[in-house]
């Protein structure tokens, strides 16, 4: 209808016509602006108040007792540090919180410099103290639509203690006296599983420590490696196919990057499956930008290990190529360039056709950043050399898009880039270029004709359906 016309002063329905539901906020201001007014939020699910003040009996400093008594005192201090405080209540147990903090500090120093403190009895106590402090159900996110790109993360309130516990644990794992053969009794699958769940923490400081911890554990406990990889798989699969929510994907990928680096050749089937069934589908997630750099690094690591994986990887990327999200498309193009940087010519030949069909679509994208990113490939010397070697295949695929954009793209910078690309092609293979220019029109006409034939075919099919439908109410007569 013609009622609501946009020209002023007639823009009568310029009003929002949103559903009448009551929203918490006016939907117009940018989220980041709204958030800026709020103070940084803190949260902790660590503790359920028992209502009673906590009393710890102060112990002497480790350095103040004779060496023989130190292991015993070390254990006692570990036991004291199992006590967890409520940090949401900023006023409670101030003195004891400070006492625990200084004790933890002392423990950190102690494991760093001391020798001979790590008795067998100490292992379970260390693991117990760490578990008591760090393992907890993470609190619900402050806003249920937490957007890691826009929102400030909720910080862990108990960080003053938690940080020292992580610090202590890392020093413990890195200590020269540390013996994995004893520790593996306590740092087991269940421990690792709980550790991995913590990667969902909203607090980036915590995730950073976790990354180091997990990396050390992976390095020192050979028996846990397969288990850790499997559980990371599960986290990723759940993230991709079930929740699309997990804060620690980038950190886990970073660890995997160095794990992949250490894979022995030939790659096990398990690792290839991980690449194809887990890493590639990770590209489909909405929040890709938060971990894309780490993901691309992992992918390239794999291809450097085993170039024969190039084809399945590129096919995978093409399958999940973004259809509506231009930012993601630019990321895909960036990753693809990284892959092409290391591609072997024999692999390139296998994948060039589908690959350049996609690139040709990107080049003609109305979004200039996408088109520009794709056209930048022609500035890459190695890619150029590959294109040149295979110009007889690639040029026909690219030609019609390039030719069309050179005439119609709205953005002059893109048109200029396209001219350069066309010029490069002309220099590469002038005979083919002239041929394609000459047949451009007739090719378009042939395409149009084909299109028309399709339409006619479907029309006939529909007529048939109609006829049959009338005859027997949609059921085929026998």
């Amino acid at each position, binding site marked *: 209808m*013609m*009622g609501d*016309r946009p020209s002023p*002063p*007639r823009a*009568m*329905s*310029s*009003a*929002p*016509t*949103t559903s*009448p*539901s*009551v*929203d*918490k*906020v*006016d939907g117009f201001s940018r989220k980041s602006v709204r958030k800026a007014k709020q103070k940084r939020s803190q949260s902790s*699910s660590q503790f*359920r*108040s028992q209502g009673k003040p906590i009393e710890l009996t102060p112990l002497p400093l480790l350095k103040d007792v004779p060496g023989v008594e130190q292991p015993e005192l070390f254990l006692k201090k570990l036991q004291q540090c199992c006590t967890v405080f409520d940090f949401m209540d900023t006023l409670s147990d101030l003195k004891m919180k400070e006492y625990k903090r200084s004790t933890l500090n002392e423990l950190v120093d102690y494991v760093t410099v001391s020798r001979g403190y790590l008795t067998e009895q100490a292992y379970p106590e260390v693991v117990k103290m760490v578990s008591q402090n760090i393992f907890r*159900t993470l*609190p*619900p996110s402050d806003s249920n639509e937490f957007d890691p790109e826009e929102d400030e993360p909720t910080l862990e309130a108990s960080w003053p203690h938690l940080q020292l516990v992580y610090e202590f644990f890392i020093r413990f794992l890195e200590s020269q006296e540390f013996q994995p053969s004893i520790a593996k009794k306590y740092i087991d699958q*269940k421990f690792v*599983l709980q550790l991995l769940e913590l990667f969902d923490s909203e607090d980036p400081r915590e995730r950073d420590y976790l990354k180091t911890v997990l990396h050390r554990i992976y390095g020192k406990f050979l028996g846990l490696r397969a288990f850790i990889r499997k559980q990371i798989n*599960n986290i990723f*699969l*759940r993230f991709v*196919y*079930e929740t699309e929510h997990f804060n620690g994907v980038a950190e886990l990928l970073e660890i995997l990057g160095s794990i992949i680096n250490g894979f022995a050749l030939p790659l096990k089937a398990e690792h290839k499956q991980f690449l194809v*069934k887990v890493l590639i*589908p990770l590209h489909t997630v909405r929040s890709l930008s938060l971990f894309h750099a780490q993901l691309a690094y992992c992918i390239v690591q794999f291809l450097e290990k085993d170039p024969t994986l190039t084809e399945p990887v590129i096919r995978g990327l093409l*399958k999940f190529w973004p259809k509506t999200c231009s930012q993601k498309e630019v990321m895909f193009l960036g990753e693809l360039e990284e892959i092409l940087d290391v591609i072997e010519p024999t692999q390139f030949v296998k994948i060039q056709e589908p690959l350049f*069909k996609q690139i040709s679509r990107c080049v003609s994208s109305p979004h200039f950043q996408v088109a520009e990113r794709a056209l930048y490939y022609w500035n890459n010397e190695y890619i150029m050399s590959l294109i040149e070697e295979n110009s007889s295949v690639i040029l026909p695929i690219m030609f019609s898009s390039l030719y069309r954009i050179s005439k119609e793209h709205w953005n002059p910078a893109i048109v200029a880039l396209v001219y350069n690309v066309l010029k490069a092609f002309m220099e590469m293979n002038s005979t083919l270029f002239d041929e394609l220019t000459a047949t451009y029109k007739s090719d378009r006409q042939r395409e149009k004709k084909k299109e028309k034939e*399709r339409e006619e*075919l*479907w029309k*006939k*099919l*529909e007529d*048939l*359906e109609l*006829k*049959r439908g009338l005859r027997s109410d*949609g*059921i*085929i*007569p*026998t």
Partner: protein
Amino acid sequence: MAGADGDDSLYPIAVLIDELRNEDVQLRLNSIKKLSTIALALGVERTRTELLPFLTDTIYDEDEVLLALAEQLGNFTMLVGGPEYVHCLLPPLESLATVEETVVRDKAVESLRKISQEHSPVDLEVHFEPLVKRLASGDWFTSRTSACGLFSVCYPRVSSTVKAEIRQHFRTLCSDDTPMVRRAAASKLGEFAKVLEPEYVKSDIISLFTALASDEQDSVRLLAVEACVSIATLLPQEDLETLVMPTLRQAAEDKSWRVRYMVADKFSELQKAVGSEITKNDLVPAFQNLLKDCEAEVRAAAANKVKEFCENLPEDNREQIIMTHILPCVKELVSDTNQHVKSALASVIMGLSTILGKDNTIEHLLPLFLAQLKDECPEVRLNIISNLDCVNEVIGIRQLSQSLLPAIVELAEDAKWRVRLAIIEYMPLLAGQLGVEFFDEKLNTLCMAWLIDHVYAIREAATCNLMKLVEKFGAEWAQNTIVPKVLGMANDPNYLHRMTTLFCINALSEACGQEITTKQMLPVVLKMSNDQVANVRFNVAKSLQKIGPVLDSNALQTEVKPVLEKLATDSDMDVKYFAQEAISVLALA
């Protein structure tokens, strides 16, 4: 021409398959969506022997195409020749049920469930059940996940040996290595329990339920809570205490807030399933704990259930339980630190008054209502106001009116237009309950002020509100209180306000009746046909079309017709268009 079984020459399969293979995804998708047409062209025989094998072999495509295919195949039974041949559809659906993408897999399972009903018992055992077994023992988690959704549809219709196998497969999947499969199994546990014979519910399901409810992953445990409802309804009362309650108690105190949230969220269902005795002894303290939970999410979910929980308490000592156990918690929630908790409570708290009766409401609930009416968060206040009718039945709204008014006024002027919109929608209800005098005295000004709000949605809602008020208070009231004000706006310098007059007239003419419309409204509308803004003029045409039926034919012919004819020659295209439309609708040509 095309015979009953398709026509080779007209529709060679190659052409059709080319369509399904087209390079352009969109075209491929379109073709798949019309797969039934292709099948129809081929006929049942060739659909079975050529099309389905092609589809089965070439399934590697974009998920969008696969999704469409999975959906199509669920409705394909007649196209392959009826129930006798329905098993031909199993191979492609089996492949689709192993795909990574969840939506595709779910759709394939949905289609499989659908066509399972079309299998004869023999075919079910020969074709369908082996497929389920293959999926259940697949290598990759996707196929095992899909299998979970298929057990319950074939179980009731197979022999007892096969049944035993199915139970065994389900057991295995419940302790699968990957949490994804355990989650799928846990989510189907209730459904599967329902089709099992009672003895197996006790011998099989309970142990699976207990195991899943203490899974290491909270995402599995919380699904067991859902199953708990179905399982509890299947067991005789005397078994509940030993078989279900230990697990449920544990879930209500789970260390993960997600599990506790689930318990809170399913509380009414759980309450009904376990019956009144257990409710009294177990669920009341559990509910108290959930209302006091340390996570706001859990408290909000529990607060949402307060009314339903109280309603379903056994009547003999309902009042006593509420007064001594529930109400103290509710009182605390009124001043909760989290606005979602308060707002959840505000949406149900008024419902307690019917349960507790007049005296208790006045003594105990009224102070809470009043406190919430003054809450800083507009959503809380709105939720109270939107439920006023419950209180009205018990103690009458007058008790509240002193506090109500400031709350309404404040919401009416809230900076967020959605809040204003919400309060407008409750106006007719409030007007009905507060009565005409109170309304005229206190609220009428608000209703008129909304007409000149700067947000169109508010002006529109205000117009609609006036109509509802007139329906409630009658034409005479309209004539005295609102019509003069509405018509006065016709002279406003702002064209948007002038148009509001027209919109109001559109809404009010019917409720006000012929006399008011003809004598008071029509002259104003006609006068506005000379407005300098084209939008006003074409809205005059629209208004005339709208109020035409209320007018008598004399007014139409002598007053409306000349004006419309004039507008039909307006210089503005739209004015012309709407004038002509009005002329033809009112049959004035």
